[in-house]
């Protein structure tokens, strides 16, 4: 089983142990800094818990292998960083279209291209949401501590299974590589997509409430057809039928959007009376909270909205906050979640980006907020 108890661990290793705790028994990946320790650790650990680890030829092979493993009935994950993430995009769309529950860990580094292998960034946020072609929806989470590298990996598996959707753990080099004390529970709550009856005709007919269909497993007598082509509720291609396509693709998006309130998690710090609300996620949110505490000491009513879930995006909450407070977005890119905030806020949004591989310091944030008129 997974490690339990009080430990002093690196973020990437906590992520690997979270996967084991969530029931992951298959990992396929191609090592890339700063995510490599996830693969290294699982290469040792998975065989000991009855699982399989494969180092693939590249990231295209890796994502393909985990999709196949899940259809063979095994929870599966891969881990990568920028360049590998780009290579995975086509089959992330395939996973979305075939409603395959998989977890993709991206320990982000500076991009574009091979960029800065050993430095942190949050440059792949929009790629996680929109990187593959066509319309679809995904779930993406953003850990800000070693503890959350464990907890949110478990959560990512459970969400991917509940909504049958590729789910992303959008970490960064800081949380991936730093070490902190963690408390790993003996047991965690896990969820596995329920299986449908064998011999059913409409394998892709969704539950009318959740909009999610039941799952099948290859090799266990299910005569199911799984395709990336537009398919009807039997799973058969129906590529020229406008109604079938619209119904399917709308449902792929709506099964996430209509369940958004159940999926979304945020942390709210001092928002009740806040006149300036900082919006941050990942490692930056730690600096932002330190800045909020300092600003409060200086008599400025600041608060922090920390996004734990990046997608689906907490639209309603943002719209509400925008009506009564100034908004300041902080992120390690030149404006990605900023666009989401602007879309919901319908007012000017202040922005403090930082790229180059360094985290915002609390002092920089304090200075920026103090200068706002």
């Amino acid at each position: 089983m997974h490690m339990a108890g009080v430990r002093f661990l690196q973020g990437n290793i906590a992520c690997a142990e979270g996967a084991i705790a969530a029931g992951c028994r298959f990992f396929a990946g191609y090592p890339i800094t700063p995510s490599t320790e996830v693969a290294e650790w699982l290469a040792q650990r998975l065989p000991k818990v009855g699982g399989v680890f494969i180092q693939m030829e590249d990231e295209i092979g890796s994502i393909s292998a985990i999709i196949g493993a899940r259809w063979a009935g095994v929870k599966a994950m891969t881990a990568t960083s920028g360049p590998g993430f780009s290579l995975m995009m086509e089959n992330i769309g395939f996973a979305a279209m075939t409603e395959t529950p998989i977890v993709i860990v991206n320990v982000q580094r500076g991009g574009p291209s091979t960029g800065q292998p050993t430095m942190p960034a949050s440059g792949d946020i929009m790629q996680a949401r929109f990187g593959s072609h066509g319309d679809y929806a995904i779930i993406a989470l953003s850990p800000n501590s070693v503890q959350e590298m464990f907890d949110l990996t478990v959560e990512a598996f459970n969400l991917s299974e509940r909504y049958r959707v590729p789910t992303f753990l959008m970490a960064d080099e800081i949380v991936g590589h730093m070490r902190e004390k963690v408390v790993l529970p003996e047991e965690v709550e896990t969820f596995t997509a329920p299986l449908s009856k064998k011999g059913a005709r409409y394998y892709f007919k969704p539950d009318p409430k959740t909009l999610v269909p039941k799952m099948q497993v290859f090799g266990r007598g299910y005569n199911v057809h799984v395709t990336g082509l537009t398919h009807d509720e039997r799973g058969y291609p129906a590529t020229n039928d406008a109604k079938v396509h619209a119904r399917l693709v709308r449902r792929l998006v709506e099964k996430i959007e209509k369940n958004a309130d159940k999926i979304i998690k945020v942390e709210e710090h001092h928002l009740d009376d806040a006149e300036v609300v900082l919006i941050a996620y990942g490692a930056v949110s730690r600096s932002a909270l330190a800045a909020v505490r300092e600003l409060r000491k200086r008599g400025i009513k600041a608060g922090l909205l920390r996004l734990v879930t990046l997608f689906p995006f907490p639209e309603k909450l943002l719209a509400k906050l925008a009506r009564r407070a100034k908004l300041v977005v902080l992120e390690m890119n030149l404006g990605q979640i900023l666009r989401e905030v602007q879309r919901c806020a319908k007012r000017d949004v202040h922005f403090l980006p930082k790229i180059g591989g360094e985290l915002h310091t609390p002092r920089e944030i304090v200075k920026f907020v103090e200068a706002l008129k």
Partner: protein
Amino acid sequence: MRVEVRFSGFGGQGIVTAGIILARAASIHDGKNAVQTQSYGPEARGGASRSEVIISDEEILYPKVLNPDIFVVMSGQAMQKYIRDLKKDGTVIYDSSLIKTPPERGKAFAVPATLLAKRELGKTIVANIIMLGALTSITGIVSREAIEKAVLESVPKGTEELNKKALHMGFEQGDGLLR
């Protein structure tokens, strides 16, 4: 109280390991909060290596070290590069068998760790553990019991005695310098 410690030297000297052991001692055995981070180039050995630890009784939010209170340094290159970041009244503990010029600022403590490791223990590889011992003695940021437990948990099986000797040698070096 937030205490920031920076270890720096060459890749291969156990700089990252030293940081991890210190943070483990503080967080697991002394019951404080600790965060360890590191920065490194693409080289595994020979390049510049840096490992940083923050120890605090309170929650640690910003996880990086900007101006260390304590600087443990094991190469001349690292001394030159980082000495200016040290807090004004900070403490420098340097390997005087590798660094000939004392630092230009801070309270300086010279520990000939690499020489001692080689001459007394026959293994230069434990120089980092001697430095950890000296650090513990000089600064008291972790207890001797905690650092010893953390060292013994972290080193490869079969090397426990060697590392324990190195740690105690470091304690003595530190005690001697404080006298």
